[in-house]
């Protein structure tokens, strides 16, 4: 009995201590605490592991430990808006699971007292974690999830800097228009092939909707079975329809088989516009990189841009030093989102959530200061960045190069793709 009483007493003492917590908030905050939610373990951990160093670089820039000599980043140095308050990061792992995203967001907000949250890569996790932020009224910045629905939930505290899936496809059709103007050719008909997966089905639907909007006639609308052993009949039908542009959506194995079958059956499309995925995978390039010469695809960021954009080159040098890896799509987008948040906090001049939210709403960052090739960052009332722009890349001499938008291009568009008979 005595022991139980002692135990109870100990528990009570602990409770009192934990309930007291840190004392009240000072008028001028000394630090800004930001919770960063990414997958750090498990099968989908790569994005989290690659994004962590770039977020740390971002915090170091604001804390004055690292220099990125461009006006937008110089402005954030030492967080002048908060009189030199330091940025403190708390990383949390959600393993790609929506329920962990929710629990961690809640813990970061209520126990670590974060002033804002950044994350979470996986659309499903972003969905649950941002709901928690909404509930507690804490700004949530999402740099990369691509599910269009995320910004259609009517949330007040949710902001997304990255394009979503519909923007990407729109980029392809805008490219057609620009290309018609520039080269005086006509892209009036399209042939769509996509598989039965969710990604394929979604892509097919968006492409059909946008084709109608942009006045491109769909002369072939072909859904095929994923991971087929033969694509002969599909290629025959493409050949018969002979569209101005062939728009495939495929995972890797099908993408490779399509190229081989086209060669076999002598199908010579003038233009191929792929929906990312299989056509951009390293194994695709390895297997049929030479045969697939001239394949176009949409992409959010391309490594060849690093050389062309001084900001990206400078950041890449910092990233390389810390992580021994070139900057690519994921860290590039993550950094962009994180710096957007820091900019808002700096302008808010306070860690008050409502002040940060208002500053985020008023965000206006010019495109030339960004790592990404966007026109800038400005949020609409749903929290979606409206200044996003997809880029189009083309496979030339075994490597993807940026060919559109014209001002970001590192190569000219190869058109038409040489016929099989004319290749050596």
């Amino acid at each position: 009995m005595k022991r139980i009483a002692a135990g109870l007493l100990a528990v009570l003492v602990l409770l009192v201590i934990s309930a007291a917590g840190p004392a009240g908030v000072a008028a001028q905050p000394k630090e800004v605490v930001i919770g960063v939610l990414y997958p750090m373990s498990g099968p989908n951990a790569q994005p989290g592991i690659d994004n962590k160093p770039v977020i740390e670089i971002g915090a170091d820039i604001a804390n004055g430990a690292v220099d990125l000599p461009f006006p937008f980043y110089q402005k954030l140095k030492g967080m002048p808006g908060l009189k030199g308050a330091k940025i403190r990061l708390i990383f949390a792992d959600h393993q790609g699971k929506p329920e962990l995203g929710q629990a961690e967001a809640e813990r970061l907000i209520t126990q670590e007292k974060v002033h804002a949250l950044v994350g979470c890569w996986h659309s499903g996790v972003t969905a649950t974690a941002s709901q928690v932020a909404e509930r507690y009224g804490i700004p949530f910045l999402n740099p990369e999830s691509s599910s269009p629905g995320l910004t259609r939930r009517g949330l007040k505290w949710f902001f997304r800097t990255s394009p979503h899936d519909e923007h990407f496809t729109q980029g392809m059709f805008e490219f057609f228009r620009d290309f018609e103007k520039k080269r005086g050719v006509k892209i009036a008909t399209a042939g769509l092939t996509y598989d039965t997966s969710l990604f394929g089905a979604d892509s097919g639907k968006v492409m059909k909707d946008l084709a109608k909007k942009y006045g491109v006639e769909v002369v072939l609308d072909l859904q095929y079975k994923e991971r087929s052993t033969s694509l002969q009949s599909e290629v025959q039908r493409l050949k018969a329809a002979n569209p101005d542009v062939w728009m495939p959506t495929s995972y890797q194995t099908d993408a490779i088989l399509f190229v081989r079958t086209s060669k076999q059956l002598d199908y010579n499309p003038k233009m191929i516009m792929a929906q990312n995925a299989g056509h951009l995978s390293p194994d695709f390039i390895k297997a049929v990189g030479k045969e697939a010469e001239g394949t176009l695809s949409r992409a959010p960021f391309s490594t060849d841009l690093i050389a062309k954009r001084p900001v990206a080159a400078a950041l890449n040098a910092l990233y390389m030093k810390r992580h021994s890896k070139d900057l690519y799509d994921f860290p590039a987008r993550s950094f962009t989102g994180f710096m957007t948040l820091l900019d808002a906090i700096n302008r808010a001049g306070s860690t008050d959530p409502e002040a940060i939210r208002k500053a985020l709403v008023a965000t206006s960052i010019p495109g030339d200061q960004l790592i990404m090739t966007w026109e800038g960052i400005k949020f609409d009332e749903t929290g979606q960045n409206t200044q996003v722009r997809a880029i189009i890349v083309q496979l030339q001499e075994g490597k993807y190069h940026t060919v559109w938008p014209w001002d970001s291009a590192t190569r000219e568009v190869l058109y038409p793709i040489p016929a099989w008979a004319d290749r050596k």
Partner: protein
Amino acid sequence: MAPAGTLRPVLTRGLLLAGLLAALAFPAVFTLPFPRHVMIMIFLYGALATAWNIIAGYCGQISLGQAVFFGIGAYTSSLLFRDAGMTPWAGMIAGVALAVGVSQVVGYPVFRLRGHYFAIATIAVGEIVQALVVDWDAIGGARGVFVPIRRPDSLVNFQFHQSKAFYYYIALGLLLLALAVTRRIERSRAGYYFRAIREDQDAAAALGVNVRREKLRALAVSAALTAMGGTFYAQYILFIDPESVFPLSLSILICLVAVLGGVGTLWGPVLGAAVLVPLQEGTRVMLGGTGKALDLLIYGALIIAISVFQPGGLMALLARARTAGSAR
């Protein structure tokens, strides 16, 4: 029961009462959401493992497809709530009905298999159902379902945004229900049939036990309780997708919790959840942000240690301590 005279039952009962009171008082003492969340997860996984224990622990049929029933419970109530505005409580009943129906349809052929083959077949069923849901566009496919947020908090809508206390008590209620059902089965005729089947199916059949019918009954009870857990999860997390409510890893985790605590005992699954969930949450909170997966390493090592040194689970460990105590 151990030979300790009449004192033991009284003691046990007192201990249980104290535990129950502590559980009831917990939210009043811990007001931060995170400790409450950990307790809710203990109750939820405790209830799921208790449900699994009925089919696997008592009846001896190792099911590795429990996620099917969990997912059905989650999807049924969420879709009825979203599309028909039906309160998730009614959706929970619908989910239970559907899960029981599916358990009977699937169980009928699958129960022809025994032992490992049965376990393998349940894995296959789980994978098939997950694949179907991923490709089923009408119910959201791989994108999942957002449970619409309704304010203010209400019991009818099964949503509480201001405080986790309601979720806490509902989860506790779910666990108590699962325990009560198990207790009832343990002492009923069906409970003896179940255990007879577990010990020797052919002998049970020879004694006149309708083996298939009893197995189907055990599975139905297990499926019903698991589906209720699914509805709770959906209302608690407010977002479900096939990857979070239908995965094989969930079926295995349920099994792991029960095995760790002690299979075929009333309190084993609860004990397993009470150890495993805080361990998982604790290691992740302390080490998860490092990106080195240390938390998972420690978590895995502890599970291996327990299964190597005490394959009977924590209940066996307790029983051993008890017999050692009374022998002295």
